[in-house]
């Protein structure tokens, strides 16, 4: 009986989400220029097809019963896709391809995570790969908008630090057997310090902060050693103060924080515009395509929360915020029944990472935190970011016992 109920839930939820996506698609087709129609049709048709393929495949061939996390991710991704298709119709298909790659990565990573022994063996290669990717970026990237975090390969721009997020959690969590030993934590500490230090050298402070936060969550989950973590935080805080003290230009990037209205046309420009246009949206928004924030720099990336407040309204924006909370609640709840602490740590770290990143993004543009220029998970435009988010979702999916119930899991 319970399972039947869940099927109905899936069908209803899927229908609601599809309806939302169709409404977005038709709005864009109706309002957009005719030359963009094909792009929009391809984007939405491709996306909805992938969505149904995934759900029907998982249900029929894998016998999956619960789809909460995927429903959330599919909905968030389609909101981002709609905004991208509306603001940059020519980039919609590219964003779709990235999302499909992300979904593929999500499926593949789930398969990899099934074999815990394999994962344990892969932790050193993964650590090496993570560090190599960051070092490569540091050497070869050029400054883009004040940070050195983009690599350009044949017309494609890639942000390797996004992929490293996945590896960072993988490496951190894959040490479960030596649980509660401070020695094993030391190695991870060195690895984390290396990653975060490299990000600092790239001036990518937002991502560095996300890595540091994730490191704290993983360390806490592994050791429960609050004292050491407080020590680490204190050291980091001192380090941060020293950086701000001796590198004043770093501090100047955050000069507008707390009083963006005084920097209305300079470093508070984006934040104030987000507030102005969020306010214009009201509870129900002015409608997709009718906004004005979209004309401001980085509207579909850093400022996308404002675009959603303006065009979809405050209620939809609140639903997005709650989604990140829901993913973490899901991870915490399923940690209790997880087959392995590896899964529990992975899931909690991945969902905490996304929650933290969403906080930096949303509170950053609303001047509650300094604006660090990080993306809103699943929603912001950007290939690396969307792929990374979907792969992180595999960690959350893996903690659910139901995920590997029917193909057997190696223990």
């Amino acid at each position, binding site marked *: 009986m319970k399972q039947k109920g869940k099927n109905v839930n899936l069908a209803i939820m899927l229908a609601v989400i599809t309806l939302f996506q169709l409404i977005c698609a038709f709005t864009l087709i109706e309002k957009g220029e005719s030359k963009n129609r094909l792009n929009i049709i391809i984007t939405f048709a491709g996306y909805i097809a992938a969505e149904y393929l995934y759900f029907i495949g998982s249900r029929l061939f894998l016998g999956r019963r619960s789809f909460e996390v995927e429903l959330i991710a599919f909905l968030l991704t389609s909101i981002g896709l709609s905004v991208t298709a509306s603001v940059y119709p020519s980039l919609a298909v590219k964003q779709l391809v990235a999302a499909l790659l992300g979904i593929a990565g999500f499926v593949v990573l789930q398969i990899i995570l099934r074999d815990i022994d394999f994962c344990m063996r892969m932790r050193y290669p993964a650590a090496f790969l993570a560090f190599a990717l960051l070092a490569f970026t540091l050497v070869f990237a050029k400054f883009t908008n004040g940070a050195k975090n983009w690599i350009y390969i044949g017309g494609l721009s890639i942000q390797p630090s996004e992929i490293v997020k996945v590896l960072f959690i993988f490496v951190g969590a894959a040490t479960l057997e030596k649980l509660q030993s401070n020695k094993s934590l030391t190695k991870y500490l060195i690895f984390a310090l290396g990653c975060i230090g490299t990000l600092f050298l790239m001036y990518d402070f937002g991502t560095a902060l996300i890595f540091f936060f994730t490191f704290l969550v993983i360390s806490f989950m592994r050791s429960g050693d609050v004292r050491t973590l407080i020590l680490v935080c204190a050291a980091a805080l001192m380090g941060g103060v020293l950086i701000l003290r001796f590198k004043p230009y770093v501090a100047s990037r955050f000069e507008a924080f707390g009083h963006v209205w005084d920097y209305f046309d300079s470093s508070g420009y984006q934040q104030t515009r987000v507030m102005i246009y969020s306010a214009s949206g009201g509870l129900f928004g002015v409608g997709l395509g009718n906004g004005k924030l979209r004309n401001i720099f980085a509207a579909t990336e850093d400022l996308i929360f404002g675009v959603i407040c303006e065009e979809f309204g405050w209620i939809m924006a609140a639903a997005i915020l709650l989604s990140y909370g829901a993913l973490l609640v899901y991870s915490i709840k399923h940690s209790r029944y*997880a087959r392995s602490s590896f899964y529990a740590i992975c899931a909690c770290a991945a969902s905490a990472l996304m929650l933290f990143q969403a906080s930096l993004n949303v509170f950053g543009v*609303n001047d509650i935190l300094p604006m660090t220029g990080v993306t809103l998970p699943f929603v912001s435009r950007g290939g690396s970011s969307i792929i990374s988010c979907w792969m992180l979702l595999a960690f959350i999916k893996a903690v659910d016992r139901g995920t590997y119930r029917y193909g057997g899991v190696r223990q």
Partner: protein
Amino acid sequence: MKSISRRALTLYLLIFVFLAGSVLTYYRLAVNADKWAMNKANRHLYTDGGLATAGDITDRNGNVLVSTVNGVRTYSNDVSVRKATLQTVGDGAGYIAGGIQTSFKDELTGYTILDGIFNLKRYGKGNDVATTLDSDICKAAYSAMNGQDGVVGVMNYKTGEIICIVSTPTYDPLNKPAEEKEGMYLNKFFKGLYTPGSTFKIITLASAIDNMPNLENMTFECKGKNGKGQIQIGEGYVFCSGVHGNIKIEKAFNQSCNCAFASLADALGKDKLTATAEKLGFNTQMNKINGKISRSSSIIKLDGSSALDVGWAGIGQYTTLVNPCHLLTVVSAIANGGTAVEPYLVSKITTPSGKTLYTSKTNNSTEYFSPTTAQKLQKYMRSNVENNYGDYRFSGLTMCGKTGTAEISDSEDAKPNALFAGFSSNPDYPFAIIVVVENSTYSIKTAVPVASKVMAAVKKAYS
């Protein structure tokens, strides 16, 4: 495993912090939404720093004073109407702080927290604001001012509807001058403060009527030489424009005898004079017009003043200051039998779909004068027009009034401000008027003719 899941529970703390941050975000959004949405950088509402898309502002006869046509803010096609109503209607860029376009931004753009500016998108315009102004009377007043700086205000003393406001210097919003003139962004009717001069004698007289039962039998002395009277008050002298000899109160009011009113003020003392003025709203924060447009408060400050200062204050000099809208409300209260009506400017706000959002109501709750005092003041002000200013200037209006010529500087070359405050006691034309002409000569030569022309236009319009 147990320890891991226990530690995982600690992560609920993160969710709690995240939710707290989200609540804070939404709280700040909800509290500031209105202010943020109305920011001039909002391209939904403004182009090139000017309000572009908003509802119509109309006068009492439905004439459009400003509206949005094809995304452009369009003013009346009569240049005199544009100039005459500019400070009241306000400019789109917000230079004129108390203009309707600034004070009623929310209403004109149709902004609500619920829908944001969605209605603006849907209808291409916001809510319409209907005012009590009569653009023909405003135009007549603007032309009567004939290029002089100052204020004209007319209101219905029974209902509180303000039918005319003109504040000069003004400019044509379609052809803004490169050179700014002092005061052109100011609605002097609401924001101006003037030395009242002899118009303040109305208030001194009211205080005397209330406090001196023997007033009508009193005789005042105005003696002097070379055509100038003077009287000693305390340590010094108050001077008069004429030599009126021995004079009774009605005559003294007609002739605006400074000696008589300075000695009345001296006899009343600063406490009683201040008490009367404060009962009429001096030194009090005035209610905003329609709850939106703020105005200056009239001031009388006699703490620590000498007897001579009080004497000068009694004839509207010294440090007394009046706001034109307030003085108009005071004379309206006299006309209305003592009860002051709250002046208002916006009569109705309607949505693009025709729903009425707001209708103003006449609010006459404050008693400024007792009915007997009001009646006596009416009689004396009527006598001024009959015996001094001339009924021929206000034919058919049974006009009552008081002039004032306010010295605003000790310098010999300085020109005074000329004032006139009055009302028609003909029940067919229940209108009161205030006129201020700056840098003028005697009010009978400047302010009274302006009042005469404007009241003639009022009479013509409401016959």
